């Protein structure tokens, strides 16, 4: 299982690649929470980044996670960095 960390400006490239990985989990992080992470089975968005930017409604399809949960995801999956 691979965890795609998606930020800007690499979101477009990263999400295209993640789409080709049937085991992809996607984490929208930092300015990546502005990106459209829809269409993935498992999408996460980092709470502190979502709240600071006021985009809770824009990431409605994502599970909002704190840093503790993000660490668990990092530990449990191979990390693919796009941020």
């Amino acid at each position, binding site marked *: 299982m691979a965890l795609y960390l998606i930020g800007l400006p690499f979101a477009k490239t990263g999400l295209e690649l993640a789409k080709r990985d049937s085991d992809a989990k996607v984490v929208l992080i930092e300015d990546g929470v502005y990106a459209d992470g829809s269409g993935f089975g498992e999408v996460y968005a980092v709470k502190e980044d979502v709240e600071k930017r006021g985009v809770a409604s824009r990431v409605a399809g994502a599970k909002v996670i704190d840093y503790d949960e993000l660490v668990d995801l990092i*530990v449990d999956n191979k990390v693919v960095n796009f941020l």
Partner: protein
Amino acid sequence: MANINFLLTEGPFQTEKWNTAAKIAGAALKKGHKVNFFCYLDGIYNGLSTQEFADWEKVPGDYFNELVENGAEIVCCGICVNARGQQSGKFFYEGIKVGGIPDWAAFVGGADRVVTL
């Protein structure tokens, strides 16, 4: 427990990478994971103990010093440190080391996970 290596290539203030890095690494340390950092390019400025910014209670350097106090190992690229005029890191926090890419390669060799910021 996992061993997590961070690559940090941006400096304090200019972008928020330092903040994200410190938050993830801090959470990882609390959970008992092993954490190390290789600071490359502008990332090396995060090691400075001389940052002063009245608007904030804590400066970015303080967060990295705390990570070291909590068990993280932080090594900065020496070529980058000297290129950027930081004199072999003489104003870095004591626990923050100056090394080279071989240190980074060794971190990666021992890492279960690698996160870039």
